[in-house]
């Protein structure tokens, strides 16, 4: 089959208009989960069908797309979604954060600060932050409506009671502009401070759950906490073993069966560009 059988960026124009309306509403009410008629996509739920639909509705022919999965440009999910849009939209693609105009991400915010005009699209598995505390959707909607968010703190209370600290390390709940409590998708809480006052437009798409929500540029986002247990953005206490960066979020990699391990930047573009200008880490190859 030729790729021309598809409309630009796979979805038909009416669907894209529907999604854009949801996005506009989401931008108008930051943090509010807007229902939308999620379509079947040619990939399974859980692979980013929500993010793909939002990206599809945002893409223009002159856009430059970057797709990351857990910070990496070269994992299966990122590669297939990037190829999908290369085929169906023919847009330029890149791995460099600074060059991209649309970035679809799964579970990370790039280390390189985003700029105005960029769009960051998140893939969201479960948009409802109160889901595991209150299973009734009718009730959680009412709680959002009436701003009854005491329950969110019960979750944090349980964390401290059980672990001595707030052990939630990803999908850490945030409050947007003092109003809606929002699940920032499973990004590590290390990335939570970057949600706030970000220059880029941040869009969240949950395909299976049929919800879209958004953070317009420069939105105030506060991570929830207790007065005596303040929010801390944590990361592994190491430097990157390949580029030596001390401030980036790290992945732990087991390298042998004798307890050997290394820590590397989860953001591959950030790590590679640092190595390219000569930064070296503990396990970098010897220079020849």
């Amino acid at each position, binding site marked *: 089959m030729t790729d021309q059988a598809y409309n630009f960026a796979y979805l038909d124009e009416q669907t894209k208009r529907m999604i854009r309306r949801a996005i506009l509403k989401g931008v108008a009410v930051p943090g509010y989960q807007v229902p939308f008629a999620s379509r079947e996509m040619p990939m399974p739920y859980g692979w980013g069908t929500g993010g793909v639909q939002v990206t599809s509705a945002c893409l223009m022919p002159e856009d430059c797309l970057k797709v990351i999965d857990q910070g990496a440009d070269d994992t299966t999910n990122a590669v297939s979604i990037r190829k999908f849009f290369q085929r169906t939209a023919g847009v330029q693609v890149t791995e460099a954060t600074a060059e991209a105009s649309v970035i679809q991400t799964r579970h990370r915010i790039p280390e390189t600060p985003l700029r105005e005009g960029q769009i960051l699209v998140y893939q969201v598995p479960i948009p409802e932050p109160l889901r595991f505390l209150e299973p009734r959707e009718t009730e959680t909607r009412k709680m959002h409506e009436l701003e*009854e968010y*005491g329950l969110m703190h019960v979750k944090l209370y*349980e964390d401290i009671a059980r672990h001595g600290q707030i052990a939630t390390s990803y999908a850490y709940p945030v409050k947007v502009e003092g109003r809606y409590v929002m699940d920032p998708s499973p990004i590590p809480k290390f990335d939570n401070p970057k949600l706030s006052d970000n220059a880029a437009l941040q869009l969240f798409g949950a395909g299976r759950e049929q919800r879209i929500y958004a953070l317009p540029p420069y939105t105030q986002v506060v991570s929830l906490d*207790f007065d005596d247990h303040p929010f801390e953005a944590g990361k592994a206490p190491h430097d990157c073993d390949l580029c030596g960066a001390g401030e980036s979020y790290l992945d732990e990699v087991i390298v042998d069966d004798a307890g050997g391990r290394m820590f590397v930047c989860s953001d591959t573009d950030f790590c590679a560009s640092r190595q390219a200008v000569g930064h070296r880490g503990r396990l970098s190859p010897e220079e020849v």
Partner: protein
Amino acid sequence: MMEGSDLSIFAKKKPQPMASTAPLLRVEGLTKRYGARIGCADVSFDLYPGEVLGIVGESGSGKSTLLSCLAGHMAPDAGRVIFDTAEGPRDTREMSEPERRRLARTDWAYVHQNARDGLRMGVSAGGNVGERLMAVGARHYADIRTTATDWLGRVEIAPERIDDRPSAFSGGMQQRLQIARNLVTGPRLVFMDEPTGGLDVSVQARLLDLLRGLVREMGLSVLIVTHDLAVVRLLADRLMVMKGGRVVEQGLTDQVLDDPQHAYTQLLVSSVLQV
């Protein structure tokens, strides 16, 4: 209404335990229908601060419907439910939903018959007690925990079980935990729906003893629905007997139980098993 004469007799003998003369809750002509059937019809009464009012009757007599309507879980079809809020008496039916829900988690408390309905089973005992505190804005972990520990003590749950989940508790403990969770914000009006249902007699006795202590100590007003006459004999100052959705008799507990006037009340009292 045939029993109107009975009502007027006992209306004069309404006890007023506190000096305050304004009723905490005034109910006027409350009616709830399920289609053609009657849930409860034309129920009127006053509840004064510090007073415990028992509502008895057999299954299907409309007790629980009445309680749900009063607590705002169901919308009644007619009548008024006037609660003496901090800003003066207000009809709860005319309140906006946010106001009513705020009332439900501050001034009101609701103890379910089945503790599982009133507790969060996946959350520790401390979290259960702390939830209402956090819902009204408590954001200091150590303070919340101290209050929770204190309340577990008051309902006779060992403080070291604060981090256990209610699923690890016995039925009686779950019920006591539910009571602690409800009373922690110092409500003024407590709705209880068969609080001792499903508990064995010795556990019941302990729970009743505890409840009686808390009610007296905190000066709570309580509406207690039950089919167990022994429970109301022990707890309630005043009694309302319901049948077929209507109040057939009301008065002081001892008077109603020792000298029942209405045929149905006489039947009810004589049906109690003697040991």
